[in-house]
């Protein structure tokens, strides 16, 4: 039944355009020969080649080809980056250089995007919709001078569309996707519908609005969903079902060198967590049962406002101001579900976590602007207020919630100094004042050397701090048997990164064959790493402290080849991680290495208006030291291992009717990965370690039918 639906739908979607297909289509898929223009970390928007930083770009085309609806859909095959889904919360984070999403910052148009647990960091990638996105820029390494706290392992800057060449752009699509081999019209699979309308009101004024609905039916596996009344661990879902609705609007005005835009983004998400536990409520007297489960519904509401002004004063100094107000509230509704009667009882509604932020960033470029020196200075202001309820974090009993105001007032400057046509370097510094932490100073230094014949050398030294999170600051779990406490006196963790890139561009046969090869060496270190440690032996007490160290060293290479309509990309990375755990006696701080490979291939058949793409990534065995008790009862460190796995997506995309209609058919996760075996997780105080890490829900397929009308 499930598969039949899917086949039916596929046929339906694919066949519509075919009826009308016999028109002669001219070659419009011209290979993009101009280098992409980027903004991340730049004084002024400029090409990737001129950038002092090494910026990876995922273009609109790549997003389309991967059937990418959210950031979580497109990053799986990016080198070094790993997507880490959490099946129990429904969120997807990032792991880069072994560091989780707390150390990674996601920005939209240079503004950090809020979530209930952070401002820019801790982002749930499934909440970053890509429908109005022009490109995604990724920078690895600490970017604290440019983007402030928590930009430790790297950043993603999502750049949205702000203008159009057409008077009207109307685009709509539906995307039907299986979740593993599960698909049904409503309850299973993923169903996406989207509509966007853009209009150029006059020469200077442009507006667009958009709406996207993304209904994820969850991954059921052998689970039975909500309406199931037996207590055999089968109720509910393996991955939580969720429904996202996202509305966006943009108004922009641009005249001469002045432009202003206002962008609004509203997101609503409902996550359904149906408990696998069923209280059977046996009545021994009557021999009947009355099954009840304790279910949870999470609702996320996110508001994003962003006003941006750019222009120049005296036709010399460029300014760029952003003001943003953002809010994300996660509410929790808990209730007892009388399963057979379909009745909710004991409904409790309340706020789970909330965060609001006022953010402003301003930069002045070319303050000094000679042939050799350009100076940028700027400020960044963040007034952030976050709260977590007692359900969300462990706080002092009796308190309903804990609230924190974090105000940061940062000033930064950087200058680009061109010593010669081929050599430039860029020192930068940021000072950060805050209401909670001592004043922080961080710096950066990058240099770029161009050598003839297409060689480029870049060396980038960056730093950034990670702000302690709520659990680390405020946890309070003290009773007769336990004493685990947060530490309000924690300092931010200090991160430092160094990257060295050698890049060579080659052009053969008069530009018909182009090659880009890059070799990079990287180092990333963290000091004052926060860890939960024993602060008193008897009675035993734990507290978070700035104590440990974390280091990553590695090398990676990325190669791109363009031959006619073929684009190929091949990458390899080897990264070693060392952890110093000062409170563990037998700590082993050896570097443990992990290999990653990736390959992307796309080929366009101009006559057929068809592009074939595959995306591949291999993640080698990952190792980690885990604390175990051996047979003699002694604590030892053993090397735990997480199995290797491969990830591959493949898509075919074909356009019809002067590119007005595009269908994309794709398969994700061709190697059918579900979870990997691991021995690399430490056990908790009461229970043994997990032995499997859920990564995905198996091979799945999608069909996307998009219609674009440009007038």
């Amino acid at each position, binding site marked *: 039944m499930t598969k039949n639906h899917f086949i039916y739908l596929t046929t339906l979607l694919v066949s*519509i355009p075919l009826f*009308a297909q016999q028109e002669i289509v001219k070659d419009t898929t011209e290979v993009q020969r101009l280098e992409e223009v980027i903004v991340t970390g730049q004084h002024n928007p400029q090409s990737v080649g001129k950038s002092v930083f090494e910026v990876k770009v995922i273009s609109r085309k790549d997003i389309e080809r991967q059937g990418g609806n959210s950031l979580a859909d497109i990053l799986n095959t990016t080198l070094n980056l790993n997507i880490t889904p959490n099946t129990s919360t429904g969120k997807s984070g990032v792991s880069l250089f072994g560091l989780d999403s707390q150390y990674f910052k996601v920005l939209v148009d240079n503004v950090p995007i809020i979530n209930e647990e952070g401002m820019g960091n801790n982002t749930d990638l499934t909440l970053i919709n890509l429908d109005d996105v022009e490109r995604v820029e990724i920078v690895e390494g600490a970017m604290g001078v440019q983007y402030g706290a928590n930009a430790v392992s790297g950043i993603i800057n999502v750049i949205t569309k702000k203008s159009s060449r057409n008077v009207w752009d*109307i685009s*709509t*699509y*539906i995307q039907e996707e299986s979740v593993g081999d599960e698909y*049904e*019209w*409503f*309850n299973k699979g993923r*169903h996406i*519908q989207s*509509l966007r309308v853009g209009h150029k009101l006059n020469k200077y004024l442009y507006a667009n609005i958009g709406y996207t*609905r993304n209904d994820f039916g969850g991954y059921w596996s052998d689970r*039975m*969903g909500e*309406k*199931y*009344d*037996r*207590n055999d661990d089968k109720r509910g879902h393996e991955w939580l079902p969720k429904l996202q609705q996202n509305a966006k609007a943009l108004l922009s005005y641009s005249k001469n060198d002045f432009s202003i835009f206002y962008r609004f983004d509203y997101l609503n998400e409902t996550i359904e967590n149906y*408990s*696998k*536990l069923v*209280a059977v*409520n*046996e*009545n*021994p*007297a*009557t*021999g*009947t049962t009355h099954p*009840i489960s*304790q279910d949870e519904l999470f609702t996320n509401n996110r508001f994003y406002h962003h006003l941006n002004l750019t222009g120049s004063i005296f036709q010399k100094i460029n300014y760029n101001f952003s003001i943003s107000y953002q809010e994300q509230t996660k509410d929790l509704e*808990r209730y*007892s579900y009388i*399963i*057979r009667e379909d009745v909710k*009882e*004991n409904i409790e509604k309340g706020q789970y976590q909330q965060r609001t932020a006022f953010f402003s960033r301003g930069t002045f470029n070319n303050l000094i602007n000679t042939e050799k020196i350009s100076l940028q200075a700027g400020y960044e202001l963040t007034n952030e207020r976050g709260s977590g309820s*007692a*359900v969300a974090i462990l706080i002092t*009993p*009796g308190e309903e919630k804990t609230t924190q105001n974090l105000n940061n007032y940062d000033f930064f400057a950087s200058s680009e100094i061109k010593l010669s046509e081929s050599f430039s370097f860029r020192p930068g510094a940021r000072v950060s004042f805050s209401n909670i932490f001592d004043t922080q100073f961080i710096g950066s230094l990058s240099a770029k050397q161009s050598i003839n014949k297409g060689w480029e050398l870049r060396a980038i030294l960056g730093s950034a701090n990670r702000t302690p999170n709520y659990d680390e600051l405020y946890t309070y779990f003290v*009773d*007769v*048997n*336990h004493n685990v406490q947060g530490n309000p006196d924690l300092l931010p963790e200090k991160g430092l990164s160094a990257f060295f890139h050698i890049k060579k561009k080659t052009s053969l046969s008069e530009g018909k064959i182009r090659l880009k090869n890059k070799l990079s060496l990287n180092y990333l270190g963290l000091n004052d790493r926060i860890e939960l440690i024993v602060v008193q*032996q*008897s*009675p*035993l007490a734990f507290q978070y402290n700035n104590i440990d160290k974390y280091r990553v060293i590695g090398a990676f290479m990325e190669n791109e080849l363009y031959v006619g309509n073929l684009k190929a990309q091949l990458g390899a990375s080897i990264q070693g991680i060392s952890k110093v755990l000062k409170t563990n006696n037998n700590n082993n701080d050896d570097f443990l290495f992990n290999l990653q490979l990736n390959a992307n291939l796309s080929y366009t058949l101009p006559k057929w208006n068809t592009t074939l793409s595959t995306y591949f990534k291999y993640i080698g065995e990952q190792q980690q030291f885990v604390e175990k008790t051996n047979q003699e009862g002694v604590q030892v460190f053993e090397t735990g291992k997480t199995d290797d796995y491969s990830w591959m997506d493949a898509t075919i995309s074909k356009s019809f*009717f002067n590119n007005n*209609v595009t269908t994309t058919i794709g398969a994700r996760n061709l190697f059918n990965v579900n979870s990997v075996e691991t021995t690399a997780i430490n056990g908790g105080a*009461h*229970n043994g370690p997990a032995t499997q890490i859920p990564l995905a829900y198996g091979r799945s397929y999608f069909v996307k*039918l998009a*219609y674009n*009308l440009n007038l």
Partner: protein
Amino acid sequence: MMKTTNIFIYITLAIFGFASCSSDDNNLSTDPFVVAYEDRSANLKEINVFEDIMLIYSTSAIEAGGFSITVTAENAVYGVDFTTEPALINGKITLPINQGSNSNNFKFRLLNPNLDETTNIIFKIDNIDYPNASIQGNTTFTINSEAALGGSIQPEVGGPNEQFQVYVDLSSKTTKQVLRDSWDLAFYSYDEFRVGINGSIYMAAAELEQSNIDNITQADVADLMPQVAVGTFDPSNEIYIDYPDGDINRTAIKEINLEDALNKVYLVNLGYKVGTETPTNGSVAVAGDARGWKKIRILRDGTSYILQYADLNDTNHQEITIDKSSGYNATFFSFDTNSTVSVEPEADRWDLNFTVFTNIIEGAGSYGFSDGVLHNRKGGVTVYTVSTEHYDYDTFLLSNTVESNFKLDQRTIGETWRNVMNDDKVLNHNIFYIIKDANNNNYKLKFTALLNDQGQRGYPEFKYELLK
């Protein structure tokens, strides 16, 4: 242009068409409508003229109906020795099922108070006139002079604070509730002169070197105090608690010696008041504020105990004589009331105690456990655990019991009936227990709930049945 516009309309319709309806699958089973006795038996000796016999329905009746009951009596005659209301008509008691109700009852009236052990009266549900009805569960109600046949009990320990200890007697199907922090010391009534501390509030006691209670000050014991507590994760703290298996010879306080000089002063950690906070669903908050410290010394006086006690820095002390209580396991004393208090029922009138208790975790020392069920070891009760891998609860018979399996350790049930290690707090469905009471009645017992309908802890429930 027309073509593309049509497609656009089609897609738009498809989008909003999809979004506007939803389907409804389910995998639910249904139960029949059942009328059954709430209890399975009553004891003839405890019936004082009248006994209301309750019948309950599996769900509220959504329409009207009725049911009938037959009566079988051995060594008793209807109308002479006993009668019922409503009366027997054509050999049957007939009762209505009223729409909207979920129970009904009839009266048993004892006419002859001299009925003896040979009398056995059985009321059996004979017919239920209601759609999709089934006669199942407690289909009969027995009146005789034997131990209770079983049933279902919800010991009211008080919810997530578990502020009560509940003593359960299976053979009389009765419970007694006592506030956990209403007592401190248990002076045992047996031949040994032994004194226990209240493990349900995490008390601890350490023997000092002095035997003059008035000479001890807080400064003398300051170094010792952090160790004399439960849950310090120091394995050596086991000596400060009564050994949790309930062995009367392994209490924290040594046997009271005839010779006064050998009875040392003890430093006593009074543990914690019962908790009052409301924890998140599924968790417990059993411990409240610390109750402080005492110094005590216990002596013998004939067949009685003498308790000397004072606050740590006091230079004089109070003294009270405490007698052993015949028929009870112990005499209980409270520092809050400075007097003996009633706690346990008579030694042969309880089998299980639902209580928070102090246990030992191998290698980590003493540790507080909630949801504990301790059996009356001192009163002669023994218990063992059966895995459902070997026997099904429903089909387990007296002939399946193995005498040598019965264990003394009062923690045999303990906390083994539930698992609260993970976020999900669950019953262990794969075990049940066999309990032998002091009168050699054997019961099988299985837990049916740990949480209430809202998912809160501290609402245990079990079913049990006399093995025959």
